[in-house]
């Protein structure tokens, strides 16, 4: 099968390698990035990829998804799977909705899970999850990527997987803050991690998603990877926030999630705490205000 990949960066190349490992022919569309290695077939004219491939994997940054779709112009016959995290920063729209807004494609999905790019490029073993309400999108993506070095699971819960993709950077940043704050230790870390999972599950449920999705690869799996890999951008942003540097990290994402929670009448204390920190509150003050909340049921 020919597998179109939009984005010629390291993630796009990693997906191309996985497609090859699964016995398929990747075809990369790149723009604004150096040409991928010759081993990987590529073009700087994205519509060529759309003309040849029915399955398109979008491997750009969240900011670039809209542009990539505008350049490629997928049509009714395409299945478009976004391999990025959650929401478009400028609009707070889900990335799959960006595809729906910018193209005629209806059959969309999301690929999520831990994605240690360098490990994948070096032949490491990994796993991910593809979510789509369309069984054929899940089937085609699995056929495109599943191999003995990359296990791809599937889920119909597109809302849950995209939400997990959006929550992980927020929680990873919060964990970074707790690790960076003086006086907080492994107990704070564990508390933020486990309550973060409950928080994500609560929002997922309110949005009609399956709360258990967050305990899978797109949620816990990705979060574990974020803490385990040294230099993870969100974890590092958390460390920087603990030291008062507010320039990095998922501020826009946290605000978008807080708005979403408000729309659905759900409380996200940790996410709102992160918003408050980006808004100028001292991290220690934010932690203290979280700790003084009234006692409640663990499943509340």
């Amino acid at each position, binding site marked *: 099968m020919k597998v179109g990949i939009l984005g010629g960066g390291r993630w796009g190349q990693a997906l191309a390698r996985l497609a090859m490992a699964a016995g398929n022919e990747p075809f990369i569309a790149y723009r604004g990035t150096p040409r991928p290695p010759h081993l990987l077939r590529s073009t700087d004219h994205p519509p060529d990829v759309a003309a040849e491939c029915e399955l398109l994997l979008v491997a750009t940054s969240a900011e670039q998804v809209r542009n990539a779709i505008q350049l490629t112009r997928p*049509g*009714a*016959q395409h299945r478009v799977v976004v391999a990025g995290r959650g929401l478009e920063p400028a609009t707070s*729209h*889900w990335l*799959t*909705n960006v595809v*729906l*807004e910018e193209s*005629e494609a*209806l*059959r*969309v*999905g*999301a690929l999520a899970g831990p994605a240690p790019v360098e490990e994948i490029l070096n032949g490491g073993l990994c796993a991910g999850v593809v979510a*789509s*309400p*369309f*069984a*054929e999108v899940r089937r085609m993506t699995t056929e495109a990527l599943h191999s003995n070095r990359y296990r791809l699971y599937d889920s119909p819960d*597109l*809302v849950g997987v*995209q939400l997990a993709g959006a929550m992980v950077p927020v929680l990873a940043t919060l964990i970074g803050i707790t690790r960076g704050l003086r006086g907080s230790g492994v107990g704070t870390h564990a508390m933020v991690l486990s309550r973060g999972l409950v928080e994500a599950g609560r929002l997922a449920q309110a*949005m*009609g998603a399956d709360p258990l999705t967050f305990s899978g690869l797109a949620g816990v799996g990705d979060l574990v990877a974020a803490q385990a890999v040294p230099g993870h951008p969100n974890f590092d942003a958390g460390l920087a926030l603990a030291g008062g540097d507010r320039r990095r990290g998922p501020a826009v994402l946290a605000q978008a999630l807080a708005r979403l929670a408000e*729309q*659905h009448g759900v409380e996200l204390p940790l996410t709102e705490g992160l918003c408050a920190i980006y808004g100028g509150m001292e991290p220690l003050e934010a932690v203290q205000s979280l700790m003084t909340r009234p006692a409640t049921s663990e499943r509340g």
Partner: protein
Amino acid sequence: MTAATPLAPSIPGSEEPPERATGLFHPRARALVVRDLINRSRRRLEDLPDDRLEAHLEDALWNERNRMRRSRDEDEAREQLDLLATALVQGSRSDRIEAGLRLVSSWADEIHGRFSPRVYRMATRALPRMLSALLSQRPDRLSDWDLSPTARLQVRGDLDTLRILAREATLILCPTHVSNLDSPLIGLALYLAGLPPFIYGAGLNLFDNPVVGWWMHRLGAYTVDRTKKAQLYKDVLKDYSIRALTTRHHSLFFPGGTRCRSGELETHLKKGLLGTGIVAWQEMLTAGRPDAEVYVVPLTLSFTLTLEANTLIEDHLAEAGKQRYIITDDEFAQPRRLASFARRVLDLDSSVIAHFGAPLDVLGRPVSPDVGERRAEALERRRYVCDRDGEVQWDEQRDRVYTDRLGEALVDAFPRYAAVLSTHATAYAAWSCLADNVGSSDPFRLVRVPTGRRRLRREQLLQRLASTLERVHDGVRRGRWGEALPKDAGRTLQTALDHFERYHRSRVLARRGSDLVIEDPRLCLYYRNRLTFLDRPERSQPLGGAS
């Protein structure tokens, strides 16, 4: 689906396209229709592996036996069930299929109406005039009656485009469902709009009345027995709808399934019959039909007052909606109440507004009014279900997701075409004042508040009404819904009070000195619920095509 007076069906005629000559209502079509439905069921049953076939037929047996415990004697059906039971215990695979098909055969016969072209011709001439008369002013002298199309029923929408689409494609009309009066009023609205008649399924209980039943059968309404829960039956019903659509019969489905008990615009739709649109479209594509397109037209009906409001809201509050799914003892079944409603409510200017919405395709996407664009859209649309060679690739799961999208598009469309009437806006504002005064938004608490605490200060209500009207206008400006009342709270309140006095025995809102009192909080809740769409969060598109 509930229905009262039947809508007239399409009728085959010499000028009609050839496929219509084999349509549902050809004099010799009955046997053909039944045979086609049996063949469709046969193919479906033969495709099932043994264990699923057994489970499918056991489901039919169990549900039918259960139903018969509650219903009158049906000796023939009992015999068929005994045969099926025997086949399931000791028969071969083909015995089981044949026993199942006997049930299908009797159901197919029951579903198909007994259309009479003679009755149809008479009815299509007389019914619109009778309904016009019902909705007209009633002067003292009979000779002064105005039988022309009336302002009492206002028909809105891009009717020119719909008339064109009705000629070039098959239409599915999806109205909101408020009252049992919907069906005849939609029939009249179609007539006034210059649109052809639509066929529709009517609840089998409505055929129990020998006079109404005789009439409806001959007009072509097909029967829907909502007491039959077996999947096998539901599949036959869907097959009937598919056949109707593929033979170019415009069809009407109430996608909410039944009259909305709470008074709200539908937010949860039943997708069974709605999903037959995409199947029919693909069948016509497979057959290479040039007229394969199926378009879905939302229709929002807005009533100043609702005939059955008391019964419906009681049912909603009793949370007995499921148990009393088929209400047979409501105001519609009481001739005096019906006459009183016709006399006092349908006499009002714009008492009913039928707004036909912009058409959608079976994937829930808008259809262009421009013929050239529409042709291009039709070619592009095929690629959602066809492979590179243009062959239809059947995929039930994919089609269910497409139908979910269509359902969401309809739910989004209904408020766009809803008319915000004085009764709705006033009840919405009054309920909001009551909630503030009591300090609770729990409807079950608010409907039990004693009379003394239901008194509202006039200024408070006018202020709240003004802000409600402002919200409506704001939504209109942002394109969320279509139209608004003038921003005159005083006049709106006055009109609503006049209307509330006209029909209901206990009034929603009444004057009490210089203040006002909510006399019947249940009714207030019912009319207030009509505007709950004002409180819905704004959303762009469903996440990834379906949520």
